[in-house]
């Protein structure tokens, strides 16, 4: 029983982080219908950057984190400006593969600058574990889930009330109409990329505060694709609902199936979920079903 509760709580917490990263994807997809396959690498590079700031350059937290956020903003702007803007109105295949190119480049950059394979971030959450009923959960998970929820709240408010947020929603709805209203679509695109990078960076820092900075972070980013797929590509609500589901499936499956199937089953459960969703309900739980006409 204690085991079950423990898996559930960790699952939901990790799922919230996945959901946060997935939100970055949904943001870009919604505003510019570009599928960002470099998600994992964005998580990777911003976590390593945090490592570089906090551990290698020995900045205190209050300088290191804002620097990471700035770096993420810059990264997002760069990616949008130099790879995606020249490709506006190109076929979707080019848009997807260019993000693969970006992914490849970023991965190379990380091995270039940080040739070590594992790094540990300093502990910035309290160490004492929390006792919830019979389960013992380390505080990092609770904090991570809390921060993710908080960011969700802030982002929803931003989309509801801020001018840019409204412009982004409008762009998602109809690009031509938005241009007619004198909203600069390109700046909406680059804002959405900057947001996506920031969200990926925060998700990356949260994940790596739990598990350390490794190359496995790429897989973490890729796992959040299963969140996107399950929730529906263009749905924020979908992310919030699907994230914990994926996290739960991963942790419960990892906890109870390992003895039957073997170690490491945890790592591919999200991918199996992707295949299942694709076969049964390809547009996800909350996604908009597309009807095409000639």
């Amino acid at each position, binding site marked *: 029983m204690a085991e079950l509760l423990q898996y559930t709580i960790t699952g939901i917490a990790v799922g919230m982080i996945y959901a946060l990263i997935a939100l970055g994807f949904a943001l870009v997809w919604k505003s510019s219908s570009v599928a960002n396959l470099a998600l994992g690498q964005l998580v990777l590079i911003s976590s390593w950057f945090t490592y570089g700031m906090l551990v290698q350059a020995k900045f205190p937290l209050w300088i290191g984190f804002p620097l990471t956020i700035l770096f993420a903003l810059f990264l997002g702007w760069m990616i949008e400006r130099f790879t995606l803007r020249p490709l506006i109105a190109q076929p979707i*295949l080019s848009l997807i593969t260019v993000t*693969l190119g*970006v992914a*490849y480049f970023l991965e*190379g950059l990380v*091995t*270039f600058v940080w040739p070590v394979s594992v790094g540990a971030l300093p502990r910035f959450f309290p160490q004492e574990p929390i006792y919830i009923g019979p389960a013992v959960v380390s505080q990092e998970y609770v904090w991570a889930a809390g921060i993710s929820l908080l960011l969700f709240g802030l982002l929803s408010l931003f989309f509801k009330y801020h001018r840019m947020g409204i412009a982004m929603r409008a762009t998602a709805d109809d690009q031509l109409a938005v241009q007619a209203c004198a909203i600069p679509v390109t700046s909406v695109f680059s804002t959405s990329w900057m947001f996506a990078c920031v969200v990926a960076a925060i998700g990356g820092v949260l994940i790596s505060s739990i598990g350390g900075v490794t190359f496995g972070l790429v897989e973490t980013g890729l796992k959040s694709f299963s969140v996107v797929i399950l929730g529906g590509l263009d749905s924020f609500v979908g992310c919030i609902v699907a994230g914990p589901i994926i996290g739960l499936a991963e942790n419960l499956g990892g906890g109870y199936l390992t003895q039957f199937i*073997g170690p*490491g089953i945890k790592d591919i459960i999200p991918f199996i979920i992707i295949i299942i969703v694709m076969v049964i309900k390809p547009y996800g739980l909350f996604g908009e079903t597309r009807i095409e006409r000639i």
Partner: protein
Amino acid sequence: MDLPCGTRNYDYARDMAVLRTKTHWMLFIGLLAVVFTAPLYWSNYWLGVANLIGITIIAAIGLNILIGYCGQLSIGHAGFMAIGAYTTAVLTGKLGFPFLGGLICSGFTAGFIGLIFGLPSVRVKGFYLAITTIAAQFIIIWVINHWAPVTGGFVGLKVPYASIGDFIFRSKASQFYLIMVIAALCILFDKNLARGRIGRAFIAVRDNDLAAEVMGINLAYYKLLAFFIGCFLAGIAGALFAHWVGFLNAESFTLSDSILYIGMVIIGGLGTTLGPVLGAILIRLLQQGIMYISPLLEGTFPTLPAGFTTGIGPMVFGLVIILFLVFEPRGLAHRWMLFKAAYRLWPFSY
């Protein structure tokens, strides 16, 4: 198709011929002569590189059928290669199959597994399919790593040399001939596939799948057929790779490799026969160049960071993919066409 002056189409067979003019024939025979005498004057090292290029060409052709002709993005190509490689390793190494039997079986195994992972393509496309194939890549590699009794798990698997009858392809030169013959057959197959009914159906599906369906093309059939053929070729390439390296490990078939294959197809030119060949050659030579130059650079500039050698490769490839997509999305094959047109018309530009 652009042809020199005076080349007329007297009958259908001549119209359809791949080699149309005397110059074509001469160049073709010259190429054959160069390729098939190459082992006489190339060192073993460069023969190894050429073997890898040949294997890569086969895989890239498969991916080109899938992406370039049929428009179905697959980011799990290295995974399907892994299936082919491990199939032949198990069949020839453990069960004593002959090499050719193992080769064909690897193709079919990879093809059928590709078919399974291609099933979602009947309902979805674009990004959804890309994600499915990424999932396929991870699931395949995971199974290989964890199904230790059959695949050797993380330890790996030894593969015997390829052999036909009593002849064993042990030397680099004999492997070179084997790989080049199969690669040439694959190129021919690709060329003819693209010109026939199937290839045209693929192109119709790529350009507008709804319109294709209205025209009477069975979408599900052709999409799955593309997956089957693409993965079949990946399986063949994987099997050749297995016999070529002699020792298999899932490390050789990572997601990065899958992306690299996509890069090759894009750099070469999507939807052309020439494209994947050029792309494979360019990327593999680029890899050789980087391998050659990075220790030199590191020796000359000691201030370079320690990850220079491992990091510079992916950075360059990522950059090349991005630059090609931005500046020449139709790839090297298109450049080659332009060059041919300019050469034909020279010195007049019209």
